[in-house]
């Protein structure tokens, strides 16, 4: 009896270890997502405005909303998405090995990443760039005046490389002060251990808000790098990349034409392109391998680009900047829906 009991418990134990082993076939990502009935989206677990957990354990953020938008487009339900927080070194392996279907984690589109690390990029959802923040009282307005300054930067990122390259090109001598953690960087800046801090402007703006006296710090006009951030799919799955790209374009298109989460169900128009967009005529959904009303689902789930931006990034004090529709002088340009 005793032996039997122990055998049974050992057996149950081994079986319980196998529970988390999931199976997936050899199909494309779109089929994989549809069969699973759930999108798996890699995000940044702790980036203000882009991806974090709120007090009741829900994922919130700009990148998170794009994950929901893709889930809405493919599965018709923005809640059918599993967010996997990823650290920078593991994001591309996770994409290549199929652990995640799409990576929306503040990832800059570069040539090397596009060609060497097995990634394909969808249109950027956020155009960022590296900038500088320093105390207003220094009265500095251009990079050339930074000679001899100690500049705080986080280690191992392209930020550090951009800083060195730019300063060398300008012929300005400076002391780099390298920090491992973002929090330490801003704490040290506030305590005066470095004169200037450099990072992506979106981060500078967000962090300036929580300094003791935000008004005492300025962000320089100069932008020394281009950081187009957007969703990433695995290299070579064009069908899936199309779906992700057009889900992004759908949010751009909706803003260009004033379609919002609130008015999408009652939106009346004679414009044939908008009618195609809303799935009332044509077969754009079928061409993508999606349902007829996929774009309708996207906008109903998360709203248009402007709404996503205002919900997540405006509270951080981020200005729209170049992240405006091309019709208003920005860089957001939806390809034609036909």
């Amino acid at each position, binding site marked *: 009896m005793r032996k039997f009991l122990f055998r049974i418990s050992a057996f149950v134990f081994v079986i319980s270890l196998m*529970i988390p082993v999931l199976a997936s076939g050899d199909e494309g990502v779109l089929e994989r997502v549809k069969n699973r009935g759930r999108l798996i989206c890699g995000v940044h677990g702790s980036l*203000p405005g882009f991806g974090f957990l709120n007090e009741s*354990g829900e*994922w919130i953020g700009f990148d998170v909303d794009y994950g929901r938008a893709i889930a809405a487009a493919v599965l018709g339900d923005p809640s059918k998405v599993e967010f996997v927080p990823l650290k920078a070194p593991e994001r591309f392996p996770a994409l290549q090995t199929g652990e995640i279907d799409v990576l929306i984690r503040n990832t800059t589109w570069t040539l090397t990443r596009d060609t060497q690390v097995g990634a394909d990029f969808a249109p950027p959802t956020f155009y960022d760039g590296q900038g500088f923040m320093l105390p207003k009282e220094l009265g500095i307005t251009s990079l050339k005046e930074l000679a001899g300054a100690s500049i705080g930067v986080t280690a191992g990122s392209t930020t550090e490389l951009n800083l060195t390259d730019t300063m060398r090109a300008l012929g300005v001598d400076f002391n780099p002060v390298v920090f491992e953690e973002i929090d330490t960087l801003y704490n040290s800046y506030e305590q005066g251990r470095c004169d200037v801090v450099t990072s992506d402007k979106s981060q500078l703006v967000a962090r300036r808000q929580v300094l003791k006296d935000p008004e005492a710090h300025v962000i320089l006009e100069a932008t020394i790098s281009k950081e187009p951030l957007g969703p990433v799919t695995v290299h070579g799955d064009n069908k899936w990349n199309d779906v992700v790209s057009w889900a992004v374009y759908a949010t751009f298109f909706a803003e260009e034409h004033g379609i919002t989460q609130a008015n999408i169900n009652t939106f009346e128009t004679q414009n044939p392109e908008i009618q195609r967009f809303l799935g009332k005529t044509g077969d754009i959904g079928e061409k993508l391998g999606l349902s007829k009303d996929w774009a309708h689902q996207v906008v109903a789930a998360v709203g248009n680009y402007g709404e996503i931006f205002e919900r997540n990034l405006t509270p951080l004090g981020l200005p729209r900047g170049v992240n405006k529709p091309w019709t208003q002088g920005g860089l957001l340009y939806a390809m034609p829906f036909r």
Partner: protein
Amino acid sequence: MAESEFTQEIRPPKNTIGVLPWIKENLFSSWYNTLLTVIALGILFFLLKGVFTWAFTEAKWEVIPANLQLFAIGAYPIAEVWRVWIVLYTVCALIGLSGGIWGGLTLRFAVGIGGCGIVCAFLSMGISTLGWAIRAWVLGGVALLAALLFLGTRSVSVFPKIRRWVLVGWLLSFPWTLIMLRGFGKNAVLTTNWGGLLLTLILAAVGICFCFPLGVLLALGRRSTLPVVKWVSTAYIEIVRGVPLITILFMAQIVIPIFMSDNIRLDKVLRAMLGITLFSAAYMAENVRGGLQSIPRGQYEAAQAVGLNYPLTMLFIVLPQALRSVIPAIVGQFIALFKDTSLVTIVGLLDLLGIAKTVIANPDWLGLQAEVYIFVAAIYFVFSYSMSYVSQRIEEALGVGKI
């Protein structure tokens, strides 16, 4: 009459007991000790003044109660939180039963846990987010523990086999916990949603429970006379000990999926569990080996003389003595493992420390890292110190270190 001659009234020695004499004896016994005391007090005053001013006037502690749910269970959906309670109740029931049946230290442990539960239920009065429902759940758990404790004390005489059943219960509580937390079908809670203290405790419990037997086997293997067993064990121990835990975790998260075929996907949490267990087992093996080496040869020979074979010798003669002598090292290893679970943050799991990072990324709580990290450190301390305390009591009960 002769009595008065011998009875000499001896006055008690002056000023050796009490607070003031203690202070004089230890702090102001000579001029240089007085000087040192004054300087130390001055430094202490300025340090503590800074700490207290910050803690009571500047720090924004409201970030802690507002995010208690996150710290406790991470992204675990609130609608499914009953699963966590059921697991807690299972553990409470087992602790209660064990305390009742075995008595002694187990009983004290069970009473201690119950006491903690009651304190928690009433301590949280000031925190609004801990609603009455949670308090009721906690008190219910304590009641269950007490009831089963009582039942346990009564049942031993009536039904002696109960000890065996409780042991089986503990063994089964592992798969039960994992199945219960994850669930099946539509309402399954994916492990990516496990987080906070829940994930930390699961990782630590799995690591502790599995690294111990594995470590004992490796230690025996390393001392084995069979060459292959010996080489394999030695190679395993030395290779794993020569690599940092972070490297093993990265291997598990990044390299293993590349090797595996496309249609098998090992769970991320499971991979972290494997990494932590395999890593700790190597250290555990060396601790146990230290104990094994302290057993005199005579013990083995005596065991052989009475006709015990190798497994019986080890199980009944050598290991009980060997393990007893290395309890401090083993518990030290467990505490280290508990704290090492925080490294899974680096591979993107949201354990207690990972949750701390996501809390300070919330725009509402930006810049409050000091408060959040202090809170998390306090939790780690409470658990680590409890383990250390329990191990001291176990040592006392077993008479370790007594000459």
